[in-house]
């Protein structure tokens, strides 16, 4: 049974490593990039990295709850993207640029 072998060789660890790598890349993007659009994309990357680990655990533990959680995450991500893009638009309207440093103006 090569297929089963194949599947068993790609174990939980591989998914988690992938998830961790993607999460770290997203995190690095959030911390280092200045462009708000890129920042939002990085946040999406982090969320999806988490989604991968949810699905992997779900499959591995044989229950459905992890996959249900993924739907929630995706919904939240959509909402967050909407709010984030709205902020980006208003920042752009005001400063003709979408650099994150303009948010410092919100400081009291």
């Amino acid at each position, binding site marked *: 049974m090569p297929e089963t072998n194949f599947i068993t060789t790609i174990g939980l660890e591989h998914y988690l490593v992938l998830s961790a790598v993607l999460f770290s890349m997203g995190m690095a993007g*959030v*911390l*280092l990039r200045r462009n708000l659009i890129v920042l939002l994309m990085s946040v999406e990357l982090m969320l999806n990295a988490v989604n991968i680990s949810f699905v992997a655990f779900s499959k591995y533990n044989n229950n459905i709850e992890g996959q249900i959680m993924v739907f929630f995450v995706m919904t939240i991500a959509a909402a967050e993207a909407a709010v984030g893009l709205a902020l980006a638009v208003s920042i752009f309207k005001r400063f003709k640029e979408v650099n*994150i*440093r303009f*948010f*410092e103006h919100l*400081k009291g």
Partner: protein
Amino acid sequence: MDHQLLIAILLLSPLVGFVLNGTRFRSQNYVLAGAIATGAVVVSFICSVMLMLQLIDADPEHRRLTATFFEWIAVGGLKINAGFVVDQISSIMILIITGVGSLIHLFSIGYMHHDKGVTKYFAYLNLFIFNMLILVLGDSLVTMFVGWEGVGLCSYLLIGFWFSDSAKAAAGMKAFITNRIGDAAFIIGMFILFFTFGTLNMYELNALAPTVVEASWLGAATLGTLMLFIGATGKSAQVPLYVWLPDAMAGPTPVSALIHAATMVTAGVYMIVRLNPMFVAAPNTMMVIAIVGAVTAVMAATIGLTQFDIKKVLAYSTVSQLGYMFLAVGVGAFGAGMMHLMTHAFFKALMFLGSGSVIHAMDGEQDIQLMGGLKKKLPITHATFVMGWLAIIGFPLFSGFFSKDEILWQAYSSPRGSVFLWMAGALGATLTAFYMTRLMALTFWGGSRVPKSVHPHESPAIMTIPLIVLAILSVVGGFVGVPHVISEYLGHIPNFWEHWLEPVIRRLPEGVSEHSATEEWGLMATSVTLALVSAFTAYRIYTNGKKTNEQIAKAFGPVYNVVNNKYFVDEAYFGGIINPLVKQSQNLWMYIDVNFIDKTTHVIADMTKGVGSLARSFQTGNMQQYAMYIGLGVVTVLTFVLMR
């Protein structure tokens, strides 16, 4: 009418007047303000007369009309009612307060009509009458103290009435603060009496007093009454707290007449007469009172010799005459003290109003060196002033003669009196005759020294009518208490005064010393002769005018200087008490407050700020920095959780 209703109207009428005028205090309608205020006091006067008539009708042993409106304080054993009593003593006081008060209100309409604050002035005056009535009618020391403080407040407000002049405002504060010293002692006196006797009701205290026989200085009755007396020295301007009264002349002249001559300053004498059984139980206190009274009478009279401000002369004269009243009550002659209180209220109010009329005529000038010869210009003022002058120097058969000679006789003949007290009193009477004649001579007689720019004119009728009424009272007021030795020659006029007060005056336990009528005649003749000789001397010296003043000043040299500077008492108070106190306060401020308390709070504030700025440095507003903190936080927590 029911006496409770009468007492209520008596008390509330001036209060209503105060509210009516006080709520529209900016108005300059002096006719309306004066009418409201005077009307309010006249209503009170009518009530007083009706109460007096009811009292006369009553059985002599039960002459006491009470009205208790509500229970005011009830704490443990202390029960104070808002209770008011009209009896033999307070009935006299309310008649003086509302009677003389009405006349002075009337006079004020003329005197104050040009003043911008006339409505406020009348409001204060009504408030004063209200508080004074509370003072004399209250049935407990606490109720009395309410009025006692209230009249002090009104006195302060009216002395500083022209407060834009800082010297006058300062005079008001001086009066208030000096009074506070006495008031503190008054409160301590109340504590002592309450602690010992368990009540502050004056009738209960008086009823308990005969159970006390006290020879020591440290007994409760002695200490308590001594403290009350210190309170009286503040209110009634006695040594050592008299210094405020001469300065109080900064107020409008009718105020000086009402508050600082006729009524408020006699509150101390009234209080002692009110509590006479308690004071009789403390011979040491009585001795102190008599000595303080005698010293004050002489000392203030000597200062009066050198003053040139017409009101200052009268002020020192008031202090001196109050000294007589204290001398009287100090030797147990409470009736004589009360009688002098009444006659003094008449003739001193008359003279103060007269001086007001003079000042009014002189466009505000108060220096008698710039007067003289006003007799022709101010005939009515002069004629009435002469009545007051004859009364105060004790000219025979004028009111002051009866009261003053009764005091001098009692000072000599009472078991608690002595020949020294008589001598002090007689010396005071001699000096009084001198400075009052000097005042008359410099103001009204001799040649005119009035500046050309001033045109003196007689005051309007609204001011002269009160003068005339008071002049009549000053002449006849003494006949209510004619001494027995004189009444024999005047067709046996009964001594109403003595009979009236007899039930409320406690006799001295020592009994009465035996003295002959010859002695009384002799002393009387001596003091009257001394007074007349001194008056005549003053007349001879001062009708010539100013030059002789300088000669006198030269002749007496340093003595004149010391007296003219009021014995440097003010300077001594400043040097000995006020300045060191100010200096110590400054030290406390610099070293305790600034260097310690302020510094401590500043250090605490600085520390808080430091911690705050440290925390603030994390709040840069940089989102990525926040994200990094979150990340680092997660890593830290995870490290702890996983490595455990």
